[in-house]
């Protein structure tokens, strides 16, 4: 672990401004039982600057942010606002003091509307009555200002993940703040939404707000940050002016070693018969007559804007939504019954994009989570074998580099990125031959990203197939042998070889007429059909 650092903490930039920092942490330490999650963190954020925090999964970034915003009390250390000691008894106190956190996970009441959530605890009222009109109007303004497409009256529980995240951001920006903390705000957003958000952050800075910004997307960090603090294993490595660090340097500081090339080399074009082929699959409220196939040794990328029906398509394939298909073959045999369980027996698994709601049992320990889908693997003739299960967990923790303080934590106590890795380990427990991964590196740090790419590469090299649904264009371009682009529930383009470029994907995903997307691309026949879809896709982002 203790690799020599190219730049040491003493390189910390001397602060030039004369004002005391808007928010400062002095010697913050957080322990859970015997586990020290964060030790002696010292940090300051000034008005009108964007201060980025980077670090590996489980480094303690979210913990630090929660300490700064009153969500959890520190074990040791204290906070200062404008030079004065403050005690944030809870999040509401911090908010009242002008410090707000946009949580890494969605923290909104699912049964309430967007506007109701935004104003929860500080409702506008006229006399005794809540003033819904004013609140809805104000909500609509804030939503518009950050480029969100949801409406004030939408129930949060019905919204797609990205819109929920935007609603959460809107909540933080509803009132003037002194300090706004973003914990991986862009993890579930697509490119255009990210761009809008970055503008919002710049706007905050221009207005003299102090911004703390956590992201695993180092390009964002580079584009935004004035200063960058690196955390590793709960310790502060140091703070640097952003101009001193390149993306490469950041990655090195985070991981403590040189980083390899991010994407594995492309494999030779696979040939041979498809492992999975789907003919005209339609999903209620999702996809329209989508046809596709994936061969052994192939990574099939699925691109498209958020809301284009990618997740719905594959949830339909897995029998998790009402869906109809003309024909589906797996390894040249027709598949009759489609449920998650049947597919698992056929060797096909799906990794959901919503790890909190659909992926992991947050209140259960790690082992039951890991083995839920593959209980046979930890079963002796008679019963579940706990020691086998523990061994499986230890192996998974090693194989997937899941950073845990103890094997007895609940899944909900893992850091966001480690939850994602646990989820990956969980679906891989079944030893599948076709793996469908929805947003594979959501919340994964840069070092582990390449690990996951390597992992996918090894998987297909061993004769299996992988379908990757991703909103990160570089990921699609770097990983996929072939990319299907979806728009409004239809597969509108198929890109191969050199035609897999970010521009082509974006063009196909947003262009009014798929035929003109890129004339040299072979277009999918089904998608080329009529585009006047009466189909109800909830949040087309074009």
């Amino acid at each position: 672990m203790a690799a020599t650092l190219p730049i040491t903490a003493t390189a910390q930039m001397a602060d030039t401004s004369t004002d005391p920092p808007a928010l400062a942490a002095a010697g913050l330490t957080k322990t859970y039982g015997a586990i020290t999650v964060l030790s002696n963190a010292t940090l300051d954020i000034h008005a009108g600057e964007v201060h980025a925090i980077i670090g590996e999964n489980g480094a303690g970034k979210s913990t630090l942010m929660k300490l700064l915003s009153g969500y959890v009390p520190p074990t040791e250390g204290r906070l200062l606002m404008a030079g004065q000691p403050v005690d944030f008894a809870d999040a509401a106190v911090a908010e009242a003091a002008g410090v707000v956190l946009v949580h890494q996970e969605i923290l909104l009441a699912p049964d309430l509307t967007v506007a109701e959530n935004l104003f929860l605890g500080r409702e506008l009222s006229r006399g005794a009555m809540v003033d819904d009109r004013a609140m809805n109007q104000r909500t609509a303004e804030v939503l518009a200002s950050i480029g969100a497409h949801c409406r004030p009256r939408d129930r949060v529980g019905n919204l797609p993940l990205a819109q929920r995240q935007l609603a959460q951001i809107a909540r933080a920006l509803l009132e003037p703040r002194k300090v706004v903390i973003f914990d991986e705000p862009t993890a579930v957003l697509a490119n255009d939404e990210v761009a809008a958000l970055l503008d919002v952050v710049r706007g905050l800075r221009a207005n003299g707000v102090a911004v703390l910004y956590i992201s695993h997307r180092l390009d964002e960090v580079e584009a935004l940050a004035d200063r960058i603090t690196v955390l590793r294993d709960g310790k502060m490595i140091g703070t640097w002016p952003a101009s001193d660090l390149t993306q490469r340097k950041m990655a090195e500081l985070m991981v403590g070693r040189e980083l390899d090339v991010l994407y594995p080399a492309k494999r030779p074009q696979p040939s041979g018969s498809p492992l999975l082929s789907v003919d005209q699959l339609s999903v209620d409220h999702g996809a329209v007559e989508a046809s596709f196939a994936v061969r052994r040794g192939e990574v099939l990328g699925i691109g498209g804007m958020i809301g284009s029906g990618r997740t719905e398509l594959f949830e339909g394939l897995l029998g998790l939504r009402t869906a109809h298909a003309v024909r589906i073959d797996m390894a040249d045999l027709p598949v009759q019954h489609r449920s998650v369980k049947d597919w698992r027996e056929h060797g096909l698994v799906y990794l959901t994009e919503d790890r909190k709601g659909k992926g992991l049992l947050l209140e259960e320990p790690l082992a039951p989570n890991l083995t839920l889908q593959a209980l046979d693997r930890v079963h002796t003739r008679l019963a579940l074998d706990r020691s086998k299960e523990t061994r499986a967990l230890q192996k998974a923790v090693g194989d997937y580099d899941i950073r845990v303080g103890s094997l007895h934590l609940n899944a909900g106590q893992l850091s966001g990125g480690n939850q994602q890795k646990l989820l990956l380990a969980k679906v891989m427990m079944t030893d599948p031959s076709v793996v469908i991964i929805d947003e594979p590196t959501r919340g994964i740090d840069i070092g582990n990203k390449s690990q996951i790419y390597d992992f996918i590469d090894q998987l297909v090299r061993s004769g299996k197939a992988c379908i990757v649904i991703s909103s990160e264009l570089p990921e699609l371009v770097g990983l996929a042998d072939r990319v299907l682009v979806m728009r409004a529930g239809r597969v509108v383009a198929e890109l191969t070889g050199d035609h897999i470029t970010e521009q082509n994907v974006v063009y196909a995903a947003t262009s009014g007429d798929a035929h003109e997307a890129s004339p040299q691309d072979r277009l999918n026949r089904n998608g080329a059909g009529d585009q006047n879809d009466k189909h109800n896709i909830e949040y087309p982002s074009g």
Partner: protein
Amino acid sequence: MTSTTSNIPVARPSGRIPWAALGPFIALAIVLLVGVMLNTNFATGTNIANVVTRSAFIAIIAIGATFVISSGCLDLSVGSMMAFVTGIMILIMNRFEPSMGANAIFMGAGAGLVVGAACGLLNGVIVTVGKIEPFIATLGTMGIFRALITWMSDGGSIPMDRALRDPYRPIYFGDVLGIPIPVAITLAVALVGAFILYRTKYGRRCTAVGSSADVARFSGVSVTKVRTMAFVIQGLCVAIAAICYIPRLGAATPTTGQLWELQVITAVVIGGTLLRGGKARIWGTVAGALILEVIANLMVLSNMVSEYLVAAVQGVIIILAMLAHRFIK
């Protein structure tokens, strides 16, 4: 193949389409229609007035329960609390009747409201401060209130003073502009309840707490206060129901209000409020209370069912009503 299009990250089955709001009223309409078809006596003015009037008790209590349930709790003690409050009220009225005459009724009613609120507060504090599962906490207080009324009545009954009967009678049997007074009171309680729940900050926070206590807490909403207040509202509703109830039967006994808690919760759930909290439907609750009362009325009016099997038929009808509800969605 399971077909659920919901993205809701919440475990329990739920519904959320506009139909859901209409469900209980459609179910009520169906039950009424069946009633009219089954029995010619059903649709007479007197009968309908009777049924509607008597559904007032359950409806009023269930409006309070809508608050408790939507805030994510449950109150099993309402039936016993009703008996206890009724007992206290009668004792106080009887005590003051000699000196105050009919005005003792106001004394009693006032005392009832105070005692009801206090009982609700007790429940609320045990649940929120004691952090005890509401099911168990209110099961405990259910035993406590029931025992208190038994003790107060020495195992017998607490009758209201005869002299108070006539002045008090109209509260149940009278009407204003042709509307029976208990019905008017129910409407008033429902209106106030709907106002609080849908139009005030407290109501917002109540459903927010039921939807996600964590989120509410992080937003600076005091979960403890909100839930305690819901129990107090429940207690007040119980007291209001008791005020309407006394002139009808004129006595409190250890069996008063027995098993009402089940009827109340059923009315709330039939009305479309989710038992896990987060969603509240005051008018649905009122419809739910009416459905239950109409079903009981039909059981009496029609002669098709052996007396032993009445409970079974009621059970079946409630399940069918819920199913209808479901399919309407």
